């Protein structure tokens, strides 16, 4: 019945389209309002054109425990620029004025959602045009307070699986998972080590024995070649920190965006997309 509710979800449709094109998708992560609301909105609007198939928009949080330095700094820059849940949702609404097809997944930590109110968040996020939500610090053990309200609004609760999620653990995760399964390919935080492609391939095969859901792989994918290697064995490759690094290299001494920020970041996304799209040819 979860699949029924999510039948018309943009994520479901997008993965069906990717499958029909026999290619993997490229998922790009940026943080909302990083380095400021206006630049972030421009970047977001440019991502589909540069080749992002799905967008993860980070909800900035003061204490991003599962993130490495690149995304930690992105969150702090965004908060300094006034990021808050209202602005994040407004950014999604703005994006939807011109793009009604590219799926948007909000990613972050639970406290800002809890503070906003779970029911209110689910409703407002759905109205803004959000398709999925990833909350790093809500494992299946705590998901009963978050997954049902999201699903009731047609939003996929996207679960994480990791190298520590063994065959006994996976069914517990999959009980709550919708949209796609996000496989964290390394033991560690974002933007650090890179997993070996054959290890990822084995893990994806193992996961596929448990579920029909598409599997996206993330953490440690830094180059078009990395992305291509993942695209050969998984349904999507997620790149976050490496994009943020490109963005951060285009900040001036005051931390303000230089004019080349958006084109530089989008050019990198286009390179990643080329890698992903050519992977299975």
């Amino acid at each position, binding site marked *: 019945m979860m699949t029924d509710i999510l039948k018309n979800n943009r994520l479901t449709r997008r993965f069906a389209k990717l499958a029909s094109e026999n290619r993997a998708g490229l998922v790009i992560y940026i943080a909302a309002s990083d380095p400021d609301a206006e630049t972030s909105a421009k970047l977001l609007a440019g991502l589909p054109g540069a080749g992002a198939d799905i967008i993860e928009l980070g909800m900035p949080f003061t204490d991003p425990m599962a993130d490495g330095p690149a995304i930690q700094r992105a969150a702090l820059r965004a908060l300094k620029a006034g990021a808050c849940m209202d602005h994040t949702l407004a950014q999604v609404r703005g994006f939807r004025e011109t793009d009604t097809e590219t799926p948007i997944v909000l990613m972050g930590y639970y406290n800002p959602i809890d503070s906003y109110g779970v029911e209110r968040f689910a409703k407002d996020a759905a109205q803004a045009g959000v398709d999925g939500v990833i909350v790093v610090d809500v*494992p299946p053990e705590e998901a009963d307070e978050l997954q049902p309200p999201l699903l009731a609004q047609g939003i996929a609760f996207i679960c994480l699986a990791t190298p520590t999620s063994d065959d006994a653990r996976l069914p517990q995760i999959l009980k709550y998972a919708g949209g796609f399964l996000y496989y964290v390919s390394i033991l560690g935080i974002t933007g650090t080590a890179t997993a070996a492609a054959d290890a990822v391939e084995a893990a994806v095969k193992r996961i596929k024995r448990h579920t029909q859901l598409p599997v996206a792989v993330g953490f440690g994918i830094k180059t078009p070649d990395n992305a291509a290697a993942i695209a050969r064995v998984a349904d999507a490759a997620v790149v976050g920190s490496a994009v943020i690094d490109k963005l951060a290299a285009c900040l001036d001494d005051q931390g303000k965006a230089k004019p080349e920020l958006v084109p530089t970041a989008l050019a990198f996304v286009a390179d990643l997309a080329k890698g992903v799209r050519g992977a299975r040819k």
Partner: protein
Amino acid sequence: MTSILTNSFAKGPDENGHFGPYGGRFVAETLMPLVLEVEKAFDAAKDDPAFQAELSRYLAHFVGRPSPLYFAERLTQACGGAKIYFKREDLNHTGAHKVNNCIGQILLAKRMGKTRIIAETGAGQHGVATATVCALFGLPCVVYMGAVDIARQQPNVFRMKLLGAEVRPVTSGAATLKDAMNEAMRDWVANVEDTYYLIGTVAGPHPYPVMVRDFQKIIGEEAKAQMQTMEGRLPDTLIAAVGGGSNAMGLFYPFLDEPTVKIVGVEAAGKGTETEEHAASLGKGRSGVLHGSRTYLLQNQDGQITEAYSISAGLDYPGVGPEHAWLKDAGRIDYVAITDDEALDAFHRTTRLEGIIPALESSHAIAQALKVAGSLPADHILLVSLSGRGDKDVNTVAQAMGTEL
């Protein structure tokens, strides 16, 4: 969700680690299997007489337990009211209650076959206690400590290094305890196979809050028996300082179901709870999720965690253990707040009148006792947790007095 029996305050948490709406296991999926493994190992150890015997042996011969219960006669006279007793956790090896928990958890880590220990520390007391037990058991130890705390707690940093620990400065965020805890969790996620995270207070994901409480409840169990010997009855009021809340839970827990005993937790009011600079998460915060559990947090209206402040580095944390959150809502414990100035005053009076230099954390609890003792009858017994000694704080106190050391 909750199955805590309402006829007892001592039955929590439920099987999922919930104290009413608080607690739980809000951690990244990578950590979940490990958190479940810690729980399983702790449950098995708890019921294993061999584990308990080894723990008791180290507590007696290494830590120096039982710690004395001491009648603070001169402070009592000075206040002219209730009798003030101190539970002397400052006399433990390493100078605070923290070591009770460290001995318990390192025995558990050994039992689980873990070969590397990580910890977070604020004031450095938990870091020193962890480095101490790691030296004792020959395990490598990495302690995460905020760069700001490193600067104000130099003697403890050096002690940890002498004991063989690696102290890693944390510069993210405000560079204090909360950020040290974030960094320790990042290390843990990357090293789940061999690493044990030795959390120093009754916070973090289940089973840590209940486990740390169980390793600390010896404070209250001893005090209860000692009070019986000295006064032939229960105390009337318990007072302890609450940062994360481990010494307080340790003292309070064995008394929760004694309806005649009033219990008071003391948070740090810093420069005043009406200012922005305090650490009163129970008094001024609201429910939220951080570092693995739902509890009271200092946060802004958007759910961003705000910085705590206290002159005492050990109370300088924007959250609090989930069991405290539950006991506050249940009305079993009163939580009050004491300012920097009141704590400093209590520090000086205890030092001059009793010949005991208390930790600034403990000085908050003593200040509350001094505040109420005079208005209580002479047969009222106040039992105060003197959770640590103040040698580590002399630089901070000198600075507050405008004295150069």
